[in-house]
C-alpha cells in the first residue's frame, strides 16, 4: 500500500523510508528498522504528548501524595474552600483526559514506528522490533510499579495493549474509530452489568431489612444477603483504622512499602491486563484513526480545529460538570446513590474523556498554529520527546517527595497544595528536557529502551550538524 496516501498528514518532503534519510547513522538501518530519528519527528505530536505527559501528573499526584479518604472529606465537606475548587476543576476538566491523550498519542506513535520502517531480508523485521520494544515497555512498567513503587503505573498496560494494535496499523481511519467506539461499548457494558449486580445486592439487602422490621425471622439466605451489603458498604467507606495504617506504612522505609505494594500491584496488573484494557485500547484506536487523518500532525485546516474545539469543550465540559457534581458527589453517599440511579455516571466517563481530550488537543493545535508562545511550544515538544524518561521521572520525584524513605510528606499537604508540587515538577521537567536535548538525541530512559530493543548501544550524542 502507498504510505503517503495513508498519512497525508506529513509534510510531503519528509522522507518516510528511514533508509533514504541523509543521516550517516542510518546506514546501519540497512540491517533493519532503526529508531525514529530527530528529522522524522512531527513537532505537534511531540507537543501534545508533552502536554499529556505533564497533565497526567495532575491526576496522579493525589495517588502519590494523599490517602483516598481525603476525597471523601472534600466531597462531604463544605463547598467553598480551595480543596473543593481544586477537586471540582480537576474532575471537570482533566479527569481521564490526559491519560486519554497519552493513549491516543501512543496509538499514533505505533503507526509512526511501524510505517517508518521496512523489513529487510537480513535483520530484524518491523514486527520483531515493535514487539521487542513493547516487551521491554512491559518490563519497565513492572519496574515502575514494583521497584519505583508507583501502583498507578500505565506502562505495563500500554506495552501489552500495544501488542493488540499491530495488525490494525494499516486499517482505514473510519474502522479504527469505529473499533475504538466498540471498545468503549464493551467497557460500558461491563460497567453496567457490574452496577446492576450492586443494585441487586442492595435490593436483596432492603428486602431482608424490611422483613426484619416486620419481626420476621430471616432465612439463612437473607442473612447472608444482608451481610454482603453491609460488608460492601463498609469497604466502600474509608475506615479510620485503615487510613491510619496506610499513612503509617507510606511514611515508613523502602522495604516496608515494597512489601506493602506487592499484593496491590500484582492484583492490579493481573486484573487490569484482562478486564481493564478497554478504555485504553479504545483511546489508542481512536488516536490511530485521528493520526491517520492528520489530526495530530497539523494537517487539518484551522476551521476544523476550531470546530473540534467547540464540540469537544462544548459538550465535554457540561458532561464533565455533571459527572463531578452528580456522579462524584453522589457517589460518596453510596447507598443513596445506588437507590437513586438506575445507571451510574461512570457510563459517561469515556464519552466525556474523548470529547475533552479532543478539545484539549484542538486547543493545543490552535495555539501552535497561532505561533503565540513559541518558547512554551518548543519546551513542551522537548518534554514530549522525552515522554518515557519524564514519566518515570515523575514516579521517582514524587515517591521520594512523599514516601517515608524520602521526605515523607505523605498525607501532609492539603489537596490543593499538591498542585504546587505539580507546578514545581513541571518547571523542572521543562528545563531538564530542554537542556538534555541540547546535548543528547534521546532522553536517558529512551536511550536505554532503544538500546535494549535493538540490543545494541544506540548513538546518544547530538552531532553538531543536527543542532
Amino acid at each position, binding site marked *: 500500500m502507498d504510505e503517503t496516501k495513508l498519512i497525508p498528514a506529513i509534510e510531503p518532503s519528509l522522507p518516510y523510508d528511514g533508509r533514504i534519510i541523509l543521516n550517516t547513522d542510518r546506514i546501519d538501518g540497512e540491517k533493519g528498522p532503526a529508531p525514529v530519528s530527530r528529522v522524522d519527528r512531527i513537532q505537534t505530536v511531540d507537543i501534545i504528548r508533552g502536554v499529556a505527559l505533564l497533565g497526567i501528573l495532575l491526576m496522579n499526584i493525589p495517588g502519590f501524595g494523599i490517602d483516598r479518604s481525603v476525597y471523601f472529606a472534600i466531597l462531604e465537606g463544605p463547598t467553598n474552600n480551595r480543596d473543593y475548587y481544586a477537586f471540582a476543576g480537576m474532575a471537570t476538566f482533566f479527569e481521564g483526559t490526559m491519560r486519554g491523550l497519552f493513549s491516543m498519542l501512543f496509538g499514533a506513535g505505533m503507526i509512526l514506528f511501524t510505517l517508518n520502517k521496512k*523489513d529487510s531480508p537480513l535483520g530484524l523485521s518491523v*514486527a*520483531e522490533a515493535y514487539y521487542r520494544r513493547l*516487551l521491554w515497555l512491559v518490563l519497565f512498567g513492572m519496574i515502575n510499579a514494583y521497584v519505583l513503587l508507583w501502583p498507578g503505573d500505565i506502562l505495563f498496560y500500554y506495552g501489552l495493549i500495544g501488542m*493488540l494494535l499491530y495488525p490494525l496499523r494499516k486499517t482505514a481511519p473510519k474502522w479504527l474509530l469505529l473499533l475504538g467506539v466498540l471498545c468503549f461499548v464493551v467497557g460500558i457494558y461491563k460497567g453496567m452489568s457490574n452496577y446492576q449486580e450492586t443494585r441487586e445486592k442492595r435490593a436483596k439487602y432492603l428486602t431482608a431489612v424490611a422483613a426484619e422490621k416486620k419481626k420476621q425471622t430471616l432465612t439463612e439466605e437473607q442473612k447472608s444477603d444482608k451481610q454482603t451489603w453491609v460488608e460492601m458498604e463498609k469497604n466502600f467507606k474509608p475506615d479510620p483504622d485503615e487510613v491510619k495504617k496506610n499513612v503509617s506504612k507510606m511514611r515508613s522505609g523502602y522495604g516496608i512499602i515494597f512489601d506493602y505494594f506487592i499484593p496491590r500491584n500484582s492484583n492490579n496488573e493481573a486484573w487490569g491486563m484482562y*478486564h481493564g484494557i478497554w478504555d485504553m485500547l479504545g483511546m489508542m484506536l481512536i488516536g490511530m484513526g485521528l493520526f491517520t487523518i492528520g489530526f495530530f500532525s497539523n494537517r487539518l485546516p484551522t476551521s476544523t480545529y476550531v470546530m473540534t474545539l467547540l464540540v469537544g469543550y462544548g459538550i465535554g465540559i457540561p458532561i464533565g460538570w455533571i459527572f463531578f457534581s452528580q456522579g462524584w458527589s453522589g457517589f460518596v453517599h453510596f447507598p443513596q446513590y445506588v437507590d437513586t440511579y438506575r445507571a451510574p455516571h461512570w457510563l459517561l466517563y469515556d464519552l466525556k474523556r474523548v470529547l475533552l481530550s479532543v478539545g484539549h488537543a484542538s486547543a493545543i493545535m490552535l495555539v501552535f498554529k497561532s505561533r503565540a508562545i513559541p518558547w512554551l511550544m518548543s519546551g513542551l515538544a522537548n518534554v514530549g520527546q522525552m515522554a518515557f524518561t519524564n514519566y518515570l521521572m515523575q514516579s521517582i520525584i514524587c515517591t521520594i517527595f512523599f514516601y517515608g524513605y524520602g521526605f515523607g510528606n505523605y498525607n501532609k499537604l492539603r489537596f490543593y497544595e499538591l498542585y504546587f508540587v505539580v507546578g514545581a515538577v513541571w518547571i523542572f521537567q521543562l528545563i531538564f528536557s530542554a537542556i538534555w536535548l541540547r546535548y543528547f538525541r534521546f532522553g536517558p530512559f529512551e536511550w536505554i529502551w532503544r538500546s535494549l530493543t535493538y540490543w545494541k548501544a544506540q548513538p546518544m550524542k547530538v552531532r553538531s550538524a543536527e543542532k
Partner: protein
Amino acid sequence: MSNNPSEPEKDLHVGGSSLSPNAAPANVFSLNTLLGIGLFGALLISIWVFGGFTPNMQTRLLSSPKGFEFRLYSTISLLFEGKMIALIAIAFGAGIVLFLRKHNEPGKPSRADLFIRRQFWMIILGLLNAVIFLWTQDVLFHLGIMGILLFAFFRASNRNLIIASVLTTMIFAGKHYWNYADDQVAYKKYLEVVALEKKIKQDSIANTARKDPTAAARPAMKRDTLTKDQKNDKQAWEGIVKSVKYDPKKDQGSIKEMRKHDYEKIYDHLLPLAQSREAQWTYRLGIWDLASMIFLGMALVGYGFFSARLKTLRYFLLAFAAIAAGLLLGWYRFYFQIESIRDYEKFVINHALPFNIFFSFEQGLMALGYTSGVMGLIKAGILKKVLRSLSSVGQLAMTNYIFQSIACTLFFTGFGMGYFGKLDQHQLYFVVVEIWIFQVVFSMYWMRHFREGPIEWIWRCLTYGKWFPLRRQIQSIDEPSPIAS
C-alpha cells in the same frame, strides 16, 4: 494450538524435494504426532475438571494413600499431569520457529504479520472455547498470547533459548516457593497471636485470683482482647489449614451448580472460573509455565530435534534419562504432598520448601523425555501405524481440542446429560477412551477427504482474509501450503 501444517501427508510424500523450500517434512510429521499425543494425554487430566474429580477429592485419596483409586490417580498424575500441556507447548514453540523461518513471499503479508494475525484468531478461538463451550481450563487463549509475547525470540541462539527455558522453569518453581513462603509467614503470625492470647488469659486468671482488678490489671487491660488485625492473622492461618484438608461438603455447591439444566446458570457459575484462569492464573503462573516449554521447543528446533537429526540411540537415552529424573521428582512431590496433607502445621514447621517445588522441572523433564522418546520411535520406524494415526489427530489438533470441550460439556453438565460428579475416577477414564477412539477414526476419515480440519480451515481463512479450498484434490499437491510449518 497447532502450528498446524495443513498438508503433512503431502510433505511426507514429497519428501525432501524442493516444492516448498523451507518445509522440513519430517518436522511436520513429528510435531503433529506430538500434538496428537499431547491432545489425548491432556484429556486424562482435563477430565478431572470436566467430570468433577475435584482437587478436594484428590485430597481425599491423598489422605489415605492406598487402594486402587489412589494408585490410579497417582500414576495418571505422575505420567500426565502438566506434562501433556507441556508437550503441546513444546510443539507449539517449535511451530513458531518453523513458521517464521519461511521466506516472505513478495506481494503478500510478511510471515511475522501472518503469524501475529494467526495468534489473534487463536486467542479469539480460545475465548470462545472458554466462555461459550465452557472449558474453563482452555489453553488456546494462553498459547495465543504466549506466541505474541515470545515470537520475537525466534532468532535467539539455541544456547540462549535453553537458558531462557531453564530460567523460566526456575521462576515457575519460585512462584510455588513464594506461595509457600506466604504460608510460612502466616503461620509465624498465627503463633505470635496465639502466644499473646495465652498471655492475656493468664493475666486475667492471675488478676481474678488476686481479686485486685484495679491496680495490677491496668497494664493488661489495655490489651485484653485481640485487635482486628490479630484476629485476621489468626483466622488466615486457620483458613489455610482448613483448605488443605479434605472437606466432604466442599464440592456440593459446585455439583449443584453444574447439574442445573439451564445453560445460562452454568455459564454464570463457570464464567468467573474461566476469567480468573485467563487473568490471574496467566499473570501469576501461566506465563512462566508455558514460556519455559515454548522456549524449550524453540531451542529443540535449532538442534534439528524434530527432523530426526539425532541418532536413534541418543533419542532413547535422552528419553530414558529425562523420564527417570522426572519420575523421581514426581515421587518426591507425592511423598511430601501426602505428608503435608496429614498435618500441614507440622509440615510447615519441618520443611523449608513446599512439596511442589520441583514440579516445573518434573513436568519439563518428562515432556522432554516423551518428545525424545517419540522422536526415537519415529526415527527407528517402530509403531508406524500408531504414530501415523496420532499424527492425523494432531493435524486436526484445534478441531479435536474444541470438540473435546463440546463433548465433555454436553456429557457432564446439566445442560446436557448431567454426569458431573456422578462418575468415579476410573469411570472417567472410560469416557476419555471413548473420545479417543472417536477422534482417531474421525481424524483419519476426515484427512482422507479434506486438506485440513474444519476449524483449522476457518482459522486459516480468517488469518488470510480469503477463502481456501477445503476438499482434497489430486493436483493440489503442487500448491505450497500457506500454514504448513
